[in-house]
């Protein structure tokens, strides 16, 4: 499935801004499964997206639970807890 991947703040600094991705999920295509697959892509990914790290996910520009199923063409963003205001 084709996805648009985005990273922000400290994750953008470690992993770049993201881009388009052709992902072939082994099981159900959830945000959690994508995060786990991304961890296998490099040491930097493994570290930045480690299970214990506070990472938030947005699917199609809405904050989402990691169990959210992804549709083909979805925009998926990973970022640290927000700190605006």
């Amino acid at each position, binding site marked *: 499935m084709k996805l648009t991947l*985005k990273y*922000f*703040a*400290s994750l*953008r600094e470690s992993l770049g801004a993201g881009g388009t991705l052709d992902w072939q999920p082994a099981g159900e295509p959830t945000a959690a499964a994508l995060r786990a697959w991304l961890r296998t892509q490099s040491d930097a990914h493994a570290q930045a997206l480690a299970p*214990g*790290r*506070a990472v*938030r996910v*947005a699917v199609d*520009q*809405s*904050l989402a639970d990691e169990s959210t199923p992804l549709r083909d063409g979805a925009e998926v*963003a990973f*970022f*640290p*807890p*927000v*700190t*605006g*205001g």
Partner: protein
Amino acid sequence: MAARVRIHEADFDVGAELAALQAGRTDIGAVASFVGCVRGHTREDDISAMTLEHYPGMTERAIEAMIVESESRFSVQAALVIHRVGRLLPGERIVLVAVASSHRRDAFQACEFLMDYLKTHAPFWKKETTPQGERWVDARVADDAALERWGLASANAAGGQGGESGGG
């Protein structure tokens, strides 16, 4: 009519924005506003600059949804949120939240609600420049607790460091 959610680098004129919010209207009895600014120090360090990053598109959508939610909870005649991004210096304004209502209670409450919601759910990130270098600001558990007072669960800071945060 200007958009009621605006994200940009430039400063804003609080007086002009508040005047515009009620211009030509006679149904507004109260305008409450909040202005968040860059502090020049935390408990530990002097801050020489604050750099704000956001998620273009999602930011505007998220804040617009927050305003719609505020309209369902309070009597809101008009609302405005302006948030700056980019590099800001101590003393500079970061954010303006303004709410116009028939009566003060709804204006005060909707303004505080929007600010609590924005702190925990709008995709902005702050980076502080200190004498020790640059560092990302940690999300605060206290900000989640502030939103929970309105009956909305929030776990933005969960699993993080929960340290000091600049601004509003």
